[in-house]
């Protein structure tokens, strides 16, 4: 819809033809850009149907021609009063305290408002939010940034409210703030990825000493439930994206299948057990800095050496599991990383090996496009770019894990330094025992 809005803004009457797959709320896209509306003609052909005009010109003709009157009408029918002079919206008077009720009532109210992720939330009371804010020196009304597409103001208090709802602890707040700062950076392309049909997932990587302060899991079962830092930080970011950024399922988020990773996808790097320098040091930060990195994959593969020994056994499945030539996060557990290091591999050499041995992937060309000037549907570089790969030492023994931004190569890793409050040690001390201690059977 943004193309159409851009053309309208240029003074050119426009119409978007969209198909059934994009049954998102076009009015949201328009109002998010300050436009009274957009005119849309709904196509009857689903996007997954590949209707080729060489094979079935009659089908194309039969599908398109009946829409022409509507398309012409959209370009020539005078603007309605509402389109011409939209009713001015009332200035917002946000109330800080929004609801009063029991735990159950709060949860039902929030759910029915579309403010939760489907799981119960911790009620963001004044007391809980005040406690959350002990995790930062920023004042409650401090505007961290604005998050699109709704350009909601991510004030420190709003961020803390959502962090409370997610069950995060005050020690998680500095990481969440860094996430809020990272998202709007253009390189993330989050405005595209967060609401795309591809159901991309914000994948958060934490480096530096804060991992140990807040008990981020970087070992066995990173992505399984059970670790509050991994669970709550990602969940808080999901709620922030929804409630402050305004990306709501089905309304703005057109993710065709969705992705469970949208609940949370957070990892640390096992820097203590790694034979290589950690990711944030590769990117120019000091080892003593703590950082948060985000990218948007949607393709996740676990693999293993499959009988091969040594470096070949590790690298061969990596080569075959890096999907597409977008960004890839390659997670190698410490044991495998040490084998590679003993055989002379650095992180960079691992990337170069994958790039060198990857099977070239054909761009998604139209069958007849070689003879035309039509660009490929998805341009592909001939080989994966080592700059698009992130090698992390993480995970439990027994396998390798690859998260890929399949096809898409226009995003970049965005890394932010995590700023800690002055009283960080005190906050950490208060929550240092927040770790699960399982009974021995």
């Amino acid at each position, binding site marked *: 819809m*943004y*193309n*159409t*809005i851009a*053309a*309208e*803004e*240029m*003074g*050119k*009457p*426009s*119409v*978007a*033809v969209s198909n059934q797959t*994009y049954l998102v709320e*076009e009015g949201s896209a328009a109002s*998010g*850009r*300050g*436009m009274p*509306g957009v005119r*849309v003609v709904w*196509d009857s052909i689903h996007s997954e149907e590949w209707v080729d*005009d060489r094979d079935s010109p009659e089908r*194309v003709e039969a599908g*398109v*021609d009946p829409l*022409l009157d509507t398309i012409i009408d959209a*370009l020539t029918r005078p603007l309605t009063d509402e389109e011409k002079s939209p009713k*001015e*919206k009332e*200035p*917002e008077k*946000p109330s*800080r*305290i929004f609801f*009063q*009720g*029991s735990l159950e009532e*709060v949860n039902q109210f929030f759910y029915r408002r579309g*403010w939760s992720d489907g799981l119960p939330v911790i*009620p*963001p*009371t*004044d007391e809980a939010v005040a406690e959350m804010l002990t995790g930062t020196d920023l004042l409650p009304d401090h505007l961290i940034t*604005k998050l*699109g597409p*709704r*350009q909601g103001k991510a004030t420190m208090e709003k961020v803390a409210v959502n962090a409370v*709802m997610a069950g995060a602890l005050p020690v998680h707040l500095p990481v969440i703030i860094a996430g809020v700062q990272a998202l709007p950076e*253009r390189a993330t392309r989050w*405005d595209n990825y967060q609401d795309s049909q591809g159901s991309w997932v914000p994948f958060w990587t934490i480096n530096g000493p804060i991992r140990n302060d807040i008990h981020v899991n970087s070992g066995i079962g990173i992505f399984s439930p059970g670790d509050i830092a991994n669970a709550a930080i990602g969940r808080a970011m999901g709620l922030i994206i929804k*409630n402050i950024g*305004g990306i709501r399922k089905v309304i703005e988020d057109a993710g065709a299948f969705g992705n469970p990773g949208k609940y949370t996808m957070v990892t640390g790097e096992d820097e203590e057990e790694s034979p290589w320098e950690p990711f944030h040091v590769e990117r120019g930060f000091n080892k003593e800095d703590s950082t948060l990195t985000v990218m948007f994959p949607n393709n996740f593969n676990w693999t293993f050496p499959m009988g091969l020994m040594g470096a070949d056994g590790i690298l061969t499945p990596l080569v075959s599991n890096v999907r597409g030539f977008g960004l890839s996060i390659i997670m190698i557990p410490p044991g495998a990383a040490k084998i590679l290091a003993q055989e002379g591999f650095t992180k960079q050499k691992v990337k170069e090996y994958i790039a060198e041995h990857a099977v070239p992937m054909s761009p998604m060309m139209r069958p007849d496009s070689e003879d035309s000037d*039509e*660009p490929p*549907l998805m*341009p592909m570089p001939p080989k994966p770019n080592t700059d698009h790969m992130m090698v992390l030492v993480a995970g439990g023994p027994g396998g390798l894990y690859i998260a890929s931004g399949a096809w898409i190569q*226009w995003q970049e890793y965005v890394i932010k330094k995590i700023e800690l409050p002055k009283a960080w040690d005190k906050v950490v001390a208060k929550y240092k025992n927040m770790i699960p201690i399982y009974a021995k059977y």
Partner: protein
Amino acid sequence: MSNKLMVLDPVGQPTGIFGRRLDVDSPMFAIHDPTYQPRDTAEALSSLKMAERLDTLEGKTVYLVNTGFAGAREFLEEVRDWFSRNRPDVKTVLKNKTSSMFTDEPELWKEIQENGDAVVFGVGG
């Protein structure tokens, strides 16, 4: 009422009112660029306006822009052919976005600004 919890609103303001970009001189084609997205609420900024519609397409140039989603080329080629068959008084120009449906296309917007009278985006807009 001791069991009643008073809770705070989690929604970032503004929730539904947006206005013109603060920098009115920012390029029109920057609509995809978050740098230029609206930065304030409707109270402070005026709304964008939809373009006035054409009285007729006769003698006009309609750009048909293929955004790159599956089916768009076939769809727009047939739109072009339909105009050739049924409305030869309308000039159509079929253009493919050269990068992707996700990225900006300043040169194309400039061309449309200079030479086009109306635009059909397909599919997926």
